[in-house]
């Protein structure tokens, strides 16, 4: 458990894709109407999305950029930060990359190594599909339990300077074996990770579920959310009424379980939660499935991880 004393969330910038615009993710700073964003390839489009975010956030006070995405070798981050003249640290925890980079950056600020930094996560549906699944134009039938990678790049600035949103504490999660080998069922893969981290967090912080206004999970989707609640009820006797899954909000008319990707949770946090006066004490559980296509082909089950961050909105 890491306690932060003076780490604040001061600014953010979001670039979201065309489907996100259609599916009720309003109030983003910028939308792209075309998956290629004026570039030749989808990889270049993701790089340009990240670069747009950075161009709008980086200033002379920025001392560090931490981030990650879903592409191999963190392709997008590696190229979007070229010639920015700022130290960069790449992190990968699949869809939990958001909370992993959040906690790392908060640690740097709390440790007084830096005063201000940015963390950045992105995912591009077509780039991720190409890498993890099938070619983009291939109409591989998707089952109802599958999730759809969102297209968005989100940059968030953390600083010592006080602001409305305070980062109170956080917990880095442990890697759990989900026993699930079905890569379509990302919700079932990530649910045990989310439940384990939540229980660990509650034990270590000596709090209860009802102490929070909202417990928001990353991208469990509708299937994963139900499994998550069932694990908590069956295993730990915890009943959870203030839960919301960021991924399950998206793409309801698609007959999928929801959205996935490292940008889903920050997207919903920034556009829906922070400006809602109902939510003051927010516990974020960004879940990640550490899915390696190679190991899945070799009949391994998929491990999962989840990191927790507790934020207070004043």
């Amino acid at each position, binding site marked *: 458990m890491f306690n932060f004393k003076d780490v604040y969330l001061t600014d953010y910038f979001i670039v979201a894709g065309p489907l996100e615009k259609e599916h009720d993710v309003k109030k983003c700073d910028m939308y792209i109407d075309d998956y290629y964003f004026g570039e030749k390839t989808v990889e270049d489009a993701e790089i340009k999305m990240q670069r747009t975010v950075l161009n709008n956030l980086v200033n002379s006070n920025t001392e560090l950029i931490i981030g990650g995405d879903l592409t191999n070798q963190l392709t997008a981050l590696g190229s979007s930060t070229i010639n920015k003249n700022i130290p960069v640290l790449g992190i990968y925890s699949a869809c939990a990359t958001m909370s992993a980079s959040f906690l790392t950056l908060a640690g740097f600020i709390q440790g007084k190594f830096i005063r201000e930094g940015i963390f950045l996560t992105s995912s591009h549906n077509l780039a991720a599909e190409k890498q993890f699944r099938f*070619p983009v134009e291939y109409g591989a039938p998707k089952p109802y339990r599958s999730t759809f990678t969102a297209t968005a790049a989100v940059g968030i600035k953390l600083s010592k300077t006080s602001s409305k949103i305070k980062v109170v504490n956080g917990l880095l999660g442990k890697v759990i074996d989900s026993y699930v080998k079905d890569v379509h069922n990302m919700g079932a893969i990530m649910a045990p990770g989310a439940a384990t981290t939540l229980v660990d967090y509650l034990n270590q912080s000596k709090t209860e579920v009802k102490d929070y206004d909202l417990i928001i999970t990353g991208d469990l989707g509708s299937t994963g959310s139900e499994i998550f609640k069932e694990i908590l009820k069956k295993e730990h006797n915890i009943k959870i009424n203030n839960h919301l899954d960021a991924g399950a909000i998206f793409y309801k008319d698609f007959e999928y379980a929801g959205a996935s990707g490292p940008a889903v949770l920050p997207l919903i946090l920034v556009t829906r939660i922070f400006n809602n006066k109902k939510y003051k004490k927010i516990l974020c559980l960004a879940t990640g499935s550490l899915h390696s296509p190679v190991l899945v082909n070799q009949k391994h089950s998929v491990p999962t991880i989840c990191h927790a961050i507790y934020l207070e909105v004043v």
Partner: protein
Amino acid sequence: MNKKEYLKLVKKFTPKEKKLKNAFNAFLMGGTLGFIADGLKCLIVKWAHIPIKEATTWVLIIYIFLASLFTGLGFFDKLVMKFKCGLIVPITGFAHSITSSALDYKNDGLITGLGGYLFRLAGCILLYGIIAAFFLAILKVIIYV
């Protein structure tokens, strides 16, 4: 929770696929494709005076061309998602898999991209198709000779 218990729980909460509806859709689409193909073949034989055996090849070429064109135009994947095996099992599925791979990797170099990945999906159809054909041919020889 142990492995067995958890997988049981996952099964309970995972939404079921509508298999019967999918099979019906695929049956309908596959049947329609076959019906049109046969009609087309008759027309080609009648109007172009091409022998039946060659007319079959012409129908296949037309199907491959249309599936590739529609993939390139960007709406064939939606049809495949809807009709599933009705479009995947016929030759349209084969053309679709190759064209979609080609579109994905066209910017990654002629050798390292296009050449290496063109048969990413269709490669297994070729491999196992040829192996199956080999054994079936042996079987045919044993039965008929």
